[in-house]
């Protein structure tokens, strides 16, 4: 990773690695078993300024570029995928407010989000609406200067730990909107969902809104753009997070298994001398390198504010999350019985990796969009080449 970074990014990356080595990795299995991250840990992240990493300095953020956000997420993902979920959802909300908030909203909310005084989560998914966002039924009804909010959100990452939630719904059952809703709003019931396959310590929650009063001033953006612009804008940051957290998970698999295969012996040789094992380690290393390059390419496109960043980010998320599943499965295989025990990190990598294929747009949605896009491009390239040669196009 380091050789692809600027000197300043390398310095930041080393700080992130040191932080994770000291405060995250040694405790991650315990958090997983207890199914929660201690609030003191979240406070420590806030004190470090990590919750405001990407926010501009004028709002008390650190003003990171996206490459730096990516390598931060990689370092955290190496230690704990559950903790990486905190930065994922918080950053999605903060960036959405930064882009689509009014000046008053930005002045009020962004310093609170940057300092971590308010931890935010994104409430989009519902029991009947996951990948197909158009199915959301949560409803806002306007009553003077307030909305009345009714509906149910489910599987909300850090929903049980957040102070404020960006809740997507339909205004009068029609136009999609999104509002910031404080967790202590009357009529809001938050239930911590436990016993997930992965993301065990990510405070997943079910949110039930029963005539919750929300000031109209808390609406971010304008009516009608909630699903077409705000949600995709937020999810782009989510996909960067998942791509890099998966990258961290991949590195964790390689670092754990690499040591094991060099030390453990069977049939009179170190495991690495056995072709089948060597094959698995080779593929881990190659995919780690490929996922690193795809992730950095995506963040650089985002830093350069290029329109193709959207596609590059999807490619990075798709590749890294798929590689995570494949290689964490192989990591369990290499570690044997050790890897099947809850107290061993490899078992956690395996469970967490599957979740990464589902969140922030399932990989099937990525296949649907990317596959069509690649095919269309191929067809257009062919047509352009034929046109240049004067070949008649088939009807």
């Amino acid at each position, binding site marked *: 990773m380091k050789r692809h970074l600027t000197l300043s990014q390398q310095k930041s990356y080393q700080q992130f690695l040191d932080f994770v080595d000291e405060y995250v990795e040694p405790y991650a299995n315990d958090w997983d078993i207890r199914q929660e991250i201690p609030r003191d840990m979240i406070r420590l992240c806030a004190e470090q300024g990590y919750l405001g990493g990407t926010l501009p300095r004028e709002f008390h953020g650190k003003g990171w570029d996206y490459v730096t956000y990516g390598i931060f997420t990689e370092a955290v993902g190496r230690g704990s995928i559950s903790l990486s979920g905190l930065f994922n959802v918080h950053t999605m909300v903060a960036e959405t407010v930064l*882009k*689509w*908030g*009014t000046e008053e909203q930005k002045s009020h909310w962004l310093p609170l989000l940057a300092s971590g005084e308010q931890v935010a989560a994104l409430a989009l998914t519902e029991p009947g609406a996951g990948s197909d966002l158009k199915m959301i039924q949560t409803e806002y009804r306007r009553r003077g200067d307030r909305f009345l909010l009714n509906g149910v959100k489910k599987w909300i990452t850090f929903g049980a730990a957040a102070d404020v939630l960006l809740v997507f719904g339909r205004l009068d059952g029609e136009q999609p909107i999104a509002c910031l809703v404080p967790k202590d709003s009357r009529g809001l019931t938050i239930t911590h969902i436990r016993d997930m396959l992965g993301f065990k310590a990510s405070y997943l929650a079910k949110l039930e809104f029963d005539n919750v009063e929300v000031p109209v001033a808390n609406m*971010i*953006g*304008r009516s*009608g*753009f909630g699903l*077409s*612009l705000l949600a*995709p*804008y937020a999810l*782009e940051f989510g996909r960067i997070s998942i791509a890099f957290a998966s990258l961290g998970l991949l590195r964790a698999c390689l670092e754990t298994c690499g040591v094991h295969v060099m030390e453990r012996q069977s049939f009179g040789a170190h495991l690495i001398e056995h072709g089948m094992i060597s094959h698995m380690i080779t593929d881990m290393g190659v995919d780690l390198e490929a996922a690193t390059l795809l992730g950095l390419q995506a963040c650089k496109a985002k830093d350069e*504010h*290029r*329109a*193709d*960043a*959207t*596609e590059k980010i*999807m490619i990075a998320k798709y590749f890294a999350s798929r590689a995570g599943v494949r290689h964490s499965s192989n990591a369990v295989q290499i570690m044997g019985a050790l890897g099947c025990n809850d107290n061993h990190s490899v078992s956690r990598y395996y469970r967490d990796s599957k979740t990464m294929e589902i969140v922030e747009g399932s990989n099937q949605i990525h296949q649907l*969009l990317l596959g*069509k896009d690649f095919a*269309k491009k191929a*067809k*257009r390239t062919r047509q352009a080449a034929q046109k240049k040669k004067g070949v008649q196009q088939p009807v």
Partner: protein
Amino acid sequence: MTEKNLEQTVYAFIGEHVDEKFNYDTEIFEEGLVNSLFAIQLMTFLEKEFAIKVTMEDLDMENYKSVNAIGKFIRNKKLAG
């Protein structure tokens, strides 16, 4: 960039993402020519290409419905500084 070039540039960008034939007045979102991610790509393209910042005040579908509408929006945005 000349007046004519602006629309041509926008048309060429949209053309990279659309297979169907369309003209400067075709309502690209209304007629379903683009997928759900295109709005973000279009916004990013307009911001970078024309050195503008699309903000909450600019959230009006009338601004983005067609090549001609986008051209008008960009010019107004530039005039407003």
